[in-house]
């Protein structure tokens, strides 16, 4: 015990050094680590909001149907009924959210290339899916001269 007391002077010095280092660490940590770090796990909760803040590019079929309900009605019972509008017409959030949507009218897709994106023959496509070889099928003109893309069946 006496020997410990004799050495206490440099123990105290060491202790002060450690306490100082710990204080510096705690201060730096408090400054550097954001307040919302760790609320839900080992991450910054604000990162959720950052991810949510990304702008939309595709409006979603609901937004299309809000104005174009006539088209939605005309596709009822069609083989293409379940296909989202933007699958063929492209991303249209800019059109849907514009103050005057008519200023940002989407380009009409080409009546042949857009069809072949899906319907061109390929052995890896599921059997039963309607596929054609554009060289054998039709007269070489646009598909839309015989098929209505919103209701493609030929009766």
């Amino acid at each position, binding site marked *: 015990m006496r020997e410990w007391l004799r050495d206490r002077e440099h123990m105290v010095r060491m202790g002060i050094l450690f306490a100082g280092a710990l204080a510096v660490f705690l201060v730096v940590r408090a400054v550097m680590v954001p307040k919302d770090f760790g609320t*839900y796990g*080992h991450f*910054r909760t604000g*990162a959720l909001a950052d991810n949510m803040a990304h702008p939309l*590019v*595709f409006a979603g079929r609901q937004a299309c149907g809000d104005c174009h309900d006539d088209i939605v009605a005309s596709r009822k019972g069609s083989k293409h009924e379940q296909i989202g509008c*933007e*699958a063929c017409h492209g991303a249209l959030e800019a059109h849907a959210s514009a103050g005057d949507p008519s200023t940002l009218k989407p380009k009409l897709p080409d009546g042949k290339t857009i069809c072949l994106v899906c319907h061109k023959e390929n052995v*890896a496509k*599921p059997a039963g899916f309607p596929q054609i070889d554009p060289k054998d099928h039709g007269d070489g003109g646009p598909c839309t001269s015989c098929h209505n893309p919103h209701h493609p069946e030929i009766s």
Partner: protein
Amino acid sequence: MGTDRRAFLKQTGLILVLSGAAAQAWDFVLAGEPEKAPTYKLLDHWWAMAMDIRKCIGCGNCVRACKAENGVLLEPDCFRTWVERYHVHPDDPGHPEVDSPNGGYDGFPEKYKAGDGSKNFFVPKMCNHCAHSPCVQVCPVGATFESPDGVVLVDKTYCLGCRYCVQACPYGCRYIDPRTETVDKCSLCYHRITKGLTTACCEVCPMGARKLGDLKDPKDPIHDFLKDHMIHVLKPEMATGAKAYYNGLDGSVR
């Protein structure tokens, strides 16, 4: 001091009476803008993806839509989702021939012949949004994480670009964005699903081969999909808790 106490009691009372989220929304109600209050409840969702290989036609709509929606570079090594074509010969089903020209962005030019006895099919791939993600476990700075609603996300302000997670992902779903030198990956269109929209890839899939699902919503059709089909996940032996559920997944797929 009296007003402080009143404010304190009011706030505590609100938090006790309403839930935390509702108390937050109350501020917007008081400000006369109730429509701006956050309606998305983080803990009420558990997102997953259902994919049907028997429906995928390899059109590449998902790949193009994903790149457009998320501003992904058009380089052939930057993909948040991509489509692979499998060519499996019955003599050697363990060694399929797999290709993915530009990730399927430009579709798949015909490469194989019908009637040679081989099996050919497309497999859409994306982040599996694992419940126990190896990529999250290796991140040294907390820049990637499993969100409380089951989405594996990246905090770009924290990412160092160390590439540990790129190597850790068993599914190859991560890449380094050369513009920022930080990691990028599928966010399950977090900015869309939190607004009640579906993901860009699901929105444009003409076959409905991909369907976003909320496993915490008992009315979500994903429960029927999981119940009515023979479901498999990729690399179940890795115990990643993958939530990309496949119907018709062939044993040759890796």
